[in-house]
């Protein structure tokens, strides 16, 4: 009996050769335990070694293998062929990003934005190491924990039409990570981050489409982070009229 197969329609783009991306079809073995990434690895190993894509851990932790699968941003290590059978399966680079080659996108823009929100603990004065760690209760941890699960896979940016239409938008993951530190009881950098997050191209650019949260493979809710930041900044703005320094020290 002939081996069961499935067809993948993969976007190819070679800088210097192609003016725009084109589609190439590959037929790969259909195995119910295979994910789209396995199929791409099969193509690279057995059919066409020039196919370029990113991957690393194969277990939804590294965040490198995000691609559009049938038009929806997915981690290809978690997108089973059986869920798309009988195919064909369209595999494209993540939407809204410049394409370097085939399925590889440029991340420079996000890296720049991520730095701007200062996603680390900021202290006004560091206490000496001898005084021990900054302690936190389970309740304090719970306030930001879900936002700390982000793996920078960029699925949320690919799902965000606002980012697609206005690339200056800070975007879901960067804002969610900034918000994560703003919620951290050990952090004192709220004001520093607010100057970036509350810009016009920060939280206010978001129109709450909500797809960033729908596609997140780690259960982070960037849309909530953005809307809650909007509420907090609006409150600060109102308080700034009645309280010195907006009621914050």
């Amino acid at each position, binding site marked *: 009996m002939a081996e069961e197969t499935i067809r993948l329609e993969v976007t190819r783009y070679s800088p210097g050769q192609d003016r725009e991306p084109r589609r190439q079809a590959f037929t790969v073995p259909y195995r119910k335990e295979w994910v789209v990434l396995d199929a791409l690895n099969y193509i690279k190993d057995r059919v066409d070694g020039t196919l370029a894509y990113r991957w690393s851990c194969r277990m939804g932790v590294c965040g490198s293998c995000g691609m559009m699968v049938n038009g929806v941003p997915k981690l290809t290590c978690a997108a089973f062929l059986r869920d798309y059978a009988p195919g064909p399966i369209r595999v494209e680079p993540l939407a809204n990003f*410049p394409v370097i080659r085939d399925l590889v996108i440029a991340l420079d823009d996000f890296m720049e934005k991520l730095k701007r929100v200062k996603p680390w603990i900021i202290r006004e004065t560091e206490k000496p190491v001898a005084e021990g760690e900054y302690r936190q209760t389970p309740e304090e941890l719970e306030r930001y924990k879900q936002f700390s699960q982000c793996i920078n896979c960029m699925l949320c940016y690919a799902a965000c039409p606002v980012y697609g239409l206005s690339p200056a938008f800070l975007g879901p993951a960067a804002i969610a990570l900034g918000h994560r530190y703003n919620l951290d009881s050990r952090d004192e950098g709220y004001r520093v981050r607010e100057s970036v997050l509350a810009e016009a191209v920060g939280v206010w650019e978001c129109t709450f489409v909500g797809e960033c949260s*729908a596609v997140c493979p780690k259960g982070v809710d960037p849309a909530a982070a953005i809307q809650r930041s909007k509420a907090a900044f609006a409150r600060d703005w109102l308080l700034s009229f009645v309280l010195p320094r907006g009621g914050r020290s």
Partner: protein
Amino acid sequence: MSAPAAPRPGLYYPKLPRTWWLRHPAYFRFMMRELSSVFVAAFLGVLLAQLYHLSRGPEAFAAFLAQLRSPGWIAFHVIALGFAVYHTVTWFGATAVVQVVRIGGRQVPPPLVTAANYAVWAAVSLGVLVWFARI
């Protein structure tokens, strides 16, 4: 804000087509939610016109009401009602996302926050109905 990075040579920069909102049901629902505010605003405009005609006396008000009985106006009100309900439902859903309610240090589950919105909506609607029934 920092200046957007200059395009790098050799990279392909995709452009979102104008029909992006037809690509995915969720994007379409979002656009309908945005559009709903237009109908809500238009309905409020009609309501203000109604109040204006009321201020001009019973005949003017009756004449305006007669106009509103035309099929076009009835169709508008049916559509506006549909959009207003959709607007309300999405708004209540959004409230649970935006508003974190804590009782005794624990977060109230978001569906309960939405349910509380519906409860207040029902109570206010009932109150208005009772009030109208009395006059």
